[in-house]
């Protein structure tokens, strides 16, 4: 029996320089307005399209600490709100990440929120409306959110169709924005901003990923993301031959099927 590992998020100091982010639409303005108006925000979009980066960037820009929790299907309310630890003969209370964020007025980012267990939703609800409070049941404590607290959740609509969906009663508490794969020009800019790769190779990588997004007939689970080509560009920048970099960063991470992989490699060879 493996013990459930306790989540260990800490309150990292606010970075002086916000991490680099290239807006694809008006998501930065929306984020900032939501923050000022104290309304929670729901970010939708495929994996690797920059949801987490946007949150990091905005938290730093707004000068708030950031608490991130990656939710999975065993994430429970207890994990988020806090627990008693046994130390020697005594028990000691330890705040969970949500409690910590609420107390300190941080931006709380719940990644893949739909994956979490339904009892988490109950804990989150009073935080999302005018009450802005968190009730910690086990500790019997009502905590009012400090000014500057903001809740951001992300969710990937295409993932596991029909199984994990947010309840309408939860969704309607959030402002929502969809992030999608950027246009080739913007993607090139992102790629160069992230890795400083030269324009020729950057263009090739963007052309490649653009083609790969037409993969639908192959039935891959997920669309190739900007993250994939960012990794490939890093490898190329580090001196790896381009085809080898694409193989490791793109082809192998997209599929385990030998035939599909071979076909994808042929496509890479037509690009590099």
């Amino acid at each position, binding site marked *: 029996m493996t013990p459930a590992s306790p989540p260990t998020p800490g309150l990292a100091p606010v970075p002086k320089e916000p991490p680099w982010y290239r807006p694809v639409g008006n998501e930065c303005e929306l984020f900032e307005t939501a923050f000022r108006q104290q309304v929670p925000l729901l970010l939708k979009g495929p994996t690797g399209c920059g949801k987490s980066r946007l949150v990091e960037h905005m938290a730093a820009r707004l000068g708030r600490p950031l608490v991130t929790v990656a939710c999975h299907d065993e994430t429970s309310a207890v994990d988020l709100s806090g627990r008693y630890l046994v130390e020697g003969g005594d028990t000691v209370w330890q705040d969970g990440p949500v409690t910590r964020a609420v107390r300190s007025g941080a931006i709380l980012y719940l990644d893949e929120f739909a994956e979490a267990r339904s009892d988490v939703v109950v804990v989150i609800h009073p935080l999302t409306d005018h009450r802005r409070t968190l009730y910690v049941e086990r500790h019997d404590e009502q905590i009012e959110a400090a000014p500057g607290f903001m809740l951001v959740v992300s969710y990937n609509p295409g993932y596991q*169709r029909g199984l994990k969906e947010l309840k309408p009663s939860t969704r309607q508490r959030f402002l929502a924005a969809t992030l999608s794969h950027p246009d080739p020009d913007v993607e090139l800019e992102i790629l160069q901003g992230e890795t400083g790769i030269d324009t020729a190779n950057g263009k090739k990588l963007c052309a490649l990923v653009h083609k790969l997004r037409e993969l639908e007939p192959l039935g891959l689970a997920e669309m190739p993301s900007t993250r994939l080509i960012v990794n490939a560009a890093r490898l190329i920048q580090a001196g790896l031959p381009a085809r080898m970099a694409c193989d490791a960063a793109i082809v192998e991470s997209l599929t385990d099927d030998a035939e599909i992989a071979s076909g994808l490699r042929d496509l890479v060879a037509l690009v590099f």
Partner: protein
Amino acid sequence: MARPRVELDWEEGLFRGLLSLWHRWAPGHAEPGPGAVLLEDEKGALSVLAQLLSAEPVRLLPARDVGGIRGRDLLLPRCFDLAPDHETNRRFLIVRTAISAAMRRLSRDRPRMATGPATPLDSLRLAHDAIEWLTNELPAFAREHEAALGRALQVRPDPTSLRGRARLLEESRQRAMRGDRPWLDAGLREAIERAPVSGPESRGIPIWGELIETIDAEDVEHDTPEEGHRESDVESEVAAPALEALRRVELDPREKEEAVLVHNFEKVETLDRFDGNIRDTDGADELEAHIEALEEVDLGDLVRDDDDTHSILRADLSLGLDVPDVRSIGPDEHGIPYDEWDARKKRYRRNWCTVYPSAMRAANPSWGALAVARHGRLIRELRRRLEVHRTELRPRDRQFDGEDVDLAALVDAHGARCAGRGLDPRLYVRQERRRRSFATTVLLDVSLSTDAWVGDHRVLDIAREAILVLGEVTDQLGDQLQLLAFASHTRNRCRVWELKAWGDAWSLARDRLGAIEPQGYTRIGPAIRHAAAGLASTPADRRLLLLVSDGKPTDYDRYEGRYGIADIRQALRETERQGVHSHALAVDEVARAYLPPMFGPGSWDILTHPDRLPEVLTTVYGRLTSG
């Protein structure tokens, strides 16, 4: 395949010898070099590439000559032998695949305005556009194409060695390969049309391919002859060699009525155009006797005819529906032998039955779409119900953290502390989801007894709508499901159609489910044994066999009454021993006499209201997979 010996005249034999010599030595039929790449070896990877570039599911088929595009089919040379070494040939074949895929994409996105059949000049123009598109899209394409084109130009014949139309075509092709645009030359187009055809032809460009006329499948389907000819008795089937292009051949009615006997030797002077004469389109099952002749037939000619079919030459054409019949077994089908239980002698009859597993290619997409629409609400409701059931939480004790204190652990810890020993900090109970993997096979009886009616519905229609609902629900839940249909015609011909293999997409199975029709008898034993064997080799925590049948054993060779029931009961015992749990469902009252004694208490359901079958089938499934 054993070929029957046919008595031949000495002239006929000589002719065949000449024909095979011709095929070996004629231009375009040369033996492949050592560096040749066979399409068969590369098909998998190339079809991935082709789909990426055409952005739709396309099919790669082998072509006899240079091939090209025909609708959604990309015809590529069966054997690619342009360069001396294997590696370069493979690179060139990739270039060719990319061009064909791009040609398909462009021809789809902007359909040809011109009426009439596509000419070679249209092919050149489309290839040119495709190359331009690829050069823009893929940075390294131009380099690869340059290399392939250089090589292809080297092996083109000298246009002056050709005559008439062939010469004009060869000149245009070479001009296009050098970057010129011969299709803009209206005079040339006309000249080609008028030029006499003589001598050897100018071959298409192997790294480009041609635009091949499509025969609209819809058109062919709707063009069905008068009613009454639908029921055909197919008696035998052979596989045909690969083909390239289809031409519609209008058959002179007189020619059809009296297929003139032509002695093959009369054709010796026009050997290069010999395509197997015109054969009588009607006849009894004489295929066995005609196999040799069929191998000569030019499959590029499609003849429409309204006579009954008695023999099939199976070619990779897929123009119409294709359901293997229960009574006929193809020559290349392999049966799997299964034992049968003889109740009187109390022993097995070894390898008594032969099961022929067959893929189901026929599909009826509209049926599935309508049925899903009809049951949409039920599907959503059942899915929700199963999901709630599935996601029940179960406590796990002695965790580091959890919703509740684990009293037992706490007492232990207190004792340990009082005794001065170390303390186990795992003092909590945590609620966790139960997780188990299931594999389910649904076995659908499609024998003629399912053609009966209960109320206003045909039994088979009720059964398949129920399976459709179950399939939709399991698909959304991500469960493993296999779907088999069975019927038999004596112990030697038990057929099991695989409507959904373990890995198949449900949408495919749904289309196939709509196309299945009642046939044959009900020999349930071998079908159960076959399904159980498949299930037993599937990795899962629990295995479930759902039988949708009235359970009444019948077959031509006295598989009925006590004998049949005993065999089925024995087959079920075997499956239980293999760790497969089985359950039966039926809608007709006949079943009441059969299912209970065979399946035992709690393992069957007979529905008095057939409308409830979809709900009950899925609920039974949910119950059996939640425990």
